[in-house]
Structure formats: C-alpha cells, structure tokens
C-alpha cells in the first residue's frame, strides 16, 4: 500500500529501463579486466605485504604482467602456473617475483587443468575464510543483537587509526550502531592500497588492511561491552575498488561505500575502469554479506536538490540493477539519498518527506542510506543542530535503514568527539520521541507531498528511458548526473583497463556468484 499513491507500474517500467541499462554495461564489463581486479585476485589468494620501497606486492606483480602486455590473460593463470611449477604459495612467489628471483612469464608452462585446479583450490580456501567471517558476523548478530533501525551511523576522521579507535569506542558507548572510518582524501586516486597501520591521514585515515583489522577488533570489543554488534564501514570506490572490497571481506567489514558513478563524477576516475572494477568489488561485497552504500546523495551537493531529485532516483534504479547482477541481495543495497534542500525553502520539509518516503516505497527491502544536510550547513552550529533534527524526523517517519548522522559542525571541521555525541543524542531523542509517527500519519490525497513524489518518479522514469536509448556512458558524457560532464576516455585510470583474452579466467566470480559457498 502506497502512502504516496505512487504508480508502481511506472516504477516497474523505470526498473526495466534500468535493467537494460545495466545489462548493456555488463556486456562491456565482462569483456574487460583491470590492474586492480588482478591485484584483487592476488590479495584473495594470499598475496600481501610491500617491497623494500613500500610498493604493495600485488602492485609489483601486476605491474610486471602489464609491462609484459599480458594483463589481458589475467594473473590467475600465471600464478597458478607458477604455483604448480614451484609448489610454493602465492605469497612466496610474489616475494620472489618482487626480488626479481622468479619470472612468471619464463617458467615452464604447466598442464592447464592442473593450473586451474591449483588456483581454484586456493580460491576456495579464500572463499571459505570469507564465508567464515560472514558466519562470525551472523553469530555476533545472534548473540549480541543490534540496535533498532534506523541504525545510527557516524564517522571518525582523525587521520590516525589509534585516535580513530578512541573516537569510535566512545561513539559506540554513546549509542552509535555503525562506525565509518573516513578515508584520507587523496587515497581514492591512488592506484595502490597503502600498507600497515597508519597515523597520518588527511581529513581521514588511510584504508589499509591493518587499519581495518585494528578497528574491527576495537569494535568487537566495545560491542561486547555495550551489548550489541557494532558495524564497521569503509570506502571501496576509487581506483582500488575490488582490492579494498577484498580487504573488507577478509577483515569482516560490514558496509562498504561502493559506487562507480561516485568515482566518475566526483573523483574524475575513468568510467570504463571503474565500472569494470565495480562489478568485481560488488561480487566480493555481495558474497561477504557486506551491505554496499551507493553515492547518489552526492549529486545533491553539486546539483539543486529540488530540481535534480529525479537523478537520485534514476541512479538508485541503475545501482539496484548493477547490484543484482553482482549477486547482491536487496537487503544489502544501501542505496544513497539525502536531505539536501535549502533550509530556507517554504515547505521544503514536505518535499524532503516525499522524497524519503518515495525511496522507501520503491525499494522496500533495501536498507537505504540516508545522508544528512551538508551543503546548506553553515557555521551556525545551533541552526545546524536543528537541520539535523528535521532530517532525523524524516528518517524515523519514513522508516529509513541507515541514518548517517548529521553534525552541527558540518561546515566547519570533521567531527569532534562532542559533535558526534550531540549528534547521536539528537537522533536518539527524535527517534524515540517520534517512534511510530510514520504509522500514525497519512498524506493528503493529491497534496503537495503526494504530487511531489509522483512527479519525481515520472521524471526519473523518463530519464531512465532516455538513458536506455542513449547509453549510460553517453548520459554521463552529457553531464546529466550531478551537473558534471565526464568523457568516456577521460579521467584517471584508463590505462589500467584491457580487453580480456579468450583464455582469461578469474576463479572468484564463479565461486562467489553461485555454487556451494553462497548461503
């Protein structure tokens, strides 16, 4: 039953356009691989560590592959071959390669079936390990339980993983359900993942496997203390999408920001590159039971939230289809949207309410990620606190899934401990005091709220129809999302993309997408 009197036939039409759009891109994706996809395979089969000049071993190895012009064959074959030949582990081989003591391309070719068997065997180990993490998470959720929805999601962003731990633990004690460690700003443009614990990030902390481990441990500890499972978030999107997804799977992250469109529009990453990367990263996230968060909310930080609301919805439809193709369940689709209208708009609250309710009705099983006011925050922290209260109000009224809490100091600095605490208090107060407001109110037929939602859906459907005809990449080239134009061959990372050879194989796709290890 729709509170908004939405035309669900129209929604299904939009969905079907989105499906075609995604399938179209999926064809392209399946023809390509990228440097980070190959590095991810290495990471999953156990390659880790850095060389003497701090280059991650996966990079060292894949670099050689690329320089040899053999990227299109994929690393799986060469690694499998080397393992079959040497009997050594992937890590040992990578180390030898990095020390120039072994050349993957000159060692004798082994029996192809044996090579595949070898690599599959190790891949299965990896997949089992990830499955075990998924089970550990489930066990925690059963034993400790979790907070009620909307989950309270806060960020830590000190740049120092140890200081982040202090902040995160304090936040959990204050009532947070989800902690996101914001990533150092330059990282999404790095074509490698830094290594080890780090203490000097900028506006955030580097996403490294060790940092993931440190924070996971801290949150498990504080979770025991406060009696609920505390979810950990980090960011996949960027030039290392699948690698970071793999690290997240190995270290039991729970949520990952994962959206190629975000990278394209807001980080000027090449679209071919990141769409290919996105697929593998989502397959990994999906298999690991990780919820993805998409970045539609960001559109409204550059475009006008009233005028461009339909682009958010259109993008959600597309992201849903990409997610389905990567094996993600609806319950794992934290589609992004945001409360970003100018607070001085008369009846702006009604429009926000319409938008949030609409997203809820169109994606009923998705744990929507609802982003707080940011663009229209000012240095007036008192007003900012109320902007956040209105945002919280809409979240509880429309039953959102993941509430990324707004900070009264949004326009000033990354959150201080007390900003976060006040913000959690704000949400807890509003959620509790208005708990069932959503169940209690209905919207006037053909009123401002209903009409707004209906109008946005219509616009999104039209937009999707156009994209279906013109192609997604072409739409982005035309600047239809977030008012940002990106060329198909522009941006960072294109040189890391190649068309796959016939012989190419990636053992993880099959293992993770289907088969016995899926739950």
């Amino acid at each position, binding site marked *: 039953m729709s509170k908004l009197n939405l035309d669900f036939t129209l929604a299904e039409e939009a969905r079907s356009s989105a499906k075609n759009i995604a399938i179209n891109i999926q064809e392209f994706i399946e023809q390509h691989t990228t440097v980070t996809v190959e590095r991810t395979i290495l990471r999953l089969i156990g390659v880790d560590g850095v060389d003497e000049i701090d280059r991650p071993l996966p990079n060292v190895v894949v670099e050689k592959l690329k320089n040899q012009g053999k990227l299109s064959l994929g690393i799986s074959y060469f690694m499998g071959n080397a393992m079959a030949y040497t009997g050594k582990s992937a890590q040992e081989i990578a180390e030898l390669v990095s020390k120039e003591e072994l050349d993957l391309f000159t060692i004798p070719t082994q029996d192809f079936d044996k090579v595949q068997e070898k690599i599959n065997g190790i891949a299965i180990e990896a997949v089992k390990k990830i499955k075990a993490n998924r089970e550990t998470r489930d066990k925690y959720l059963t034993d400790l339980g979790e907070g009620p929805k909307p989950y309270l999601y806060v960020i830590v*962003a*000190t740049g*120092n993983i*140890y*200081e982040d731990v202090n*902040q995160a633990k304090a936040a959990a004690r204050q009532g947070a359900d989800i902690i996101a460690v914001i990533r150092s700003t330059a990282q999404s443009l790095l074509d490698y993942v830094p290594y080890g614990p780090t203490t000097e990030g900028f506006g955030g902390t580097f996403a490294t496997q060790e940092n993931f481990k440190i924070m996971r441990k801290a949150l498990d500890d504080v979770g025991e203390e406060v009696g609920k499972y505390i979810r950990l978030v980090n960011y996949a999107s960027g030039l290392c999408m699948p690698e970071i997804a793999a690290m997240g799977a190995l270290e039991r992250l729970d949520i990952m920001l994962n959206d190629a469109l975000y990278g394209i529009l807001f980080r000027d990453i090449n679209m071919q590159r990141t769409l290919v990367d996105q697929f593998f990263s989502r397959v990994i996230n999906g298999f690991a039971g990780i919820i993805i968060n998409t970045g539609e909310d960001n559109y409204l930080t550059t475009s006008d939230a009233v005028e461009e609301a339909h682009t958010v919805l259109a993008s959600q439809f597309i992201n849903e289809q990409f997610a389905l193709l990567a094996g993600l369940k609806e319950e794992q689709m934290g589609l992004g949207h945001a409360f970003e209208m100018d607070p001085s708009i008369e009846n702006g609250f009604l429009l926000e309410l319409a938008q949030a309710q609409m997203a809820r009705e169109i994606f009923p099983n998705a744990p929507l990620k609802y982003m707080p006011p940011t663009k229209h925050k*000012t*240095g*007036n*922290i*008192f007003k900012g606190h109320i902007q956040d209260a209105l945002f919280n109000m809409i979240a509880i009224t429309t039953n959102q899934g993941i509430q990324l809490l707004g900070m009264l*100091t949004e*326009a*000033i*600095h*990354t*959150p*201080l*401990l*007390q900003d976060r605490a006040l913000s959690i208090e704000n949400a807890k107060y509003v959620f509790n005091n208005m708990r069932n407001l959503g169940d209690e109110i209905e919207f006037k037929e053909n009123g401002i709220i209903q009409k707004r939602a209906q109008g946005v859906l219509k616009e999104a459907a039209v937009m999707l129809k156009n994209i279906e005809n013109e192609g997604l990449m072409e739409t982005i080239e035309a600047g239809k999302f977030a008012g940002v134009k990106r060329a198909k061959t522009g941006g960072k990372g294109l040189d890391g993309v190649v068309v796959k050879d016939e012989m190419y194989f990636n053992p993880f796709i099959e293992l993770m997408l289907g088969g016995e290890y899926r739950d």
Partner: protein
Amino acid sequence: MTNVDLTRVKPYGDTLNDGKMQFSFTLPVQYCEEAKEAGKQLLIKMGIDDPEIVHAEDLGKGYTLIVAYGICSHTVDFSSIEVPKVDTDMMDKYGVEAFIKEHIKRDVVIVGATTGTDAHTVGIDAIMNMKGYHGHYGLERYKGMVAVNMGAQVPNEELLAKAIELNADAIIVSQIVTQKDVHIPNLTNLIELIEAEGLRDRLITVAGGPRINHELAIELGYDAGFGTGSYAEDVASFVVTEIAKKNV
C-alpha cells in the same frame, strides 16, 4: 597511543591535547568585519590560539553574535583536584527504614521548605512528597520518618520555628532561583538564625537545588548540599547517618 597527562589536561577535540573549544557570545557592536576581529582578539586575550570565527550574525542594530572555535593554551592539573562530596553510604528507601529501626529507634523528624521569595515547589516536593520523583518515593512515605513540607516562599523564621516546634532532627531547604545570587544571602541568613538559637550542633542542615552542590553548601555552613537529579534516599541516607553519628 599517547596517554592523558593528568597533571596537564587540555580540552579534547579529536586528537589528544588539541585543545579544541567552542564559544558563543554577543558583542554590543554593529555587525561587520571589525566585530569578528574583535571577537578574535577577545579570544586571544583569553589564551585561545588560532581562534576561528565560524559564524557571525547581525542580531539587530548594534549587536553581533559570534560563534567560534579555538585552541585552549591553558592546562589544568586534574590530579590535584579534590571536590568535597557527601561521603555517606547511600541506601535505598528500605535501607534507610531499616537503618532507622536498628540504629535510631525513634521517628526521625525532617522539616523542609523552599525559602525566601522563591516560589518553586517542584524540587522540594520531589524530595519530600509521598509521590516522589522518577519512581523514587518521597520522605513522607518513609516508615520511621516524619517529614513536613512547608511549601514555597516560606520565611526562614517560620521554617526554623516549625523545626523547633517539632523538635526536628533536620532542616532541608530548596533554592531554585539563583539570579543575581539571591540564594546566597537567604541561605546564609537561615544558618545565622539557627546559630542565634544555639541549634547549630543539634540540627542537621541540608540545602538543595539545581545550582547547589555539596561544596557550596559546606561553604555556606550547611552539612550537605544536593544538586540536580537528587532523590529522597540521598538526603535520607545522609540525615539518618548523621543522626546515628551524633548519637554515638
């Protein structure tokens, strides 16, 4: 991971010893760039490094609101701070009742009021009335206790007279209005009256209210002080323990 140096504690923003503080205040000058600069200079005089005026707003001719953040250059020696506290073991209602039965063996008499011009009764009622506060019964409901709540705007003289009349063990006073420090002379006056009657040693005196704390109460000559969030059992525990001490 660095640990807090308790002899040199600084405000904490998101990194130990970053000194981050938030300020808001109004300057009685026209809203302009110079007003913001004045705000900055004021903060610098306070020992605030790198003051940032994050918001300034015209509050109507001749007033400017300033919201600022900055870095506190001062530290405090937390390790040497000691705040006097009521050091009675706190009991619940049943504990207090049992204590009276066992150690005092007679009814404890407590007289209370909000005194002076203060008309706020909710605080003293929370402590004394049957019903109590937040599910904590008030003194009137305690077995072994006679609690007389005289209400608000009670002159000190009347309160003391009632205490004498009932041969009370304790006088408990509520003071909610503290503007221009009006509670100080009023609380002081009561103690002086009690002393004049030569009852200072016999009568237990307690003050309470949102701006009262134990330290202040002691300073003003009371035996104890209770602030925001106090319940009947807190003052009851204190009073009965004191009576028992005096009996020893």
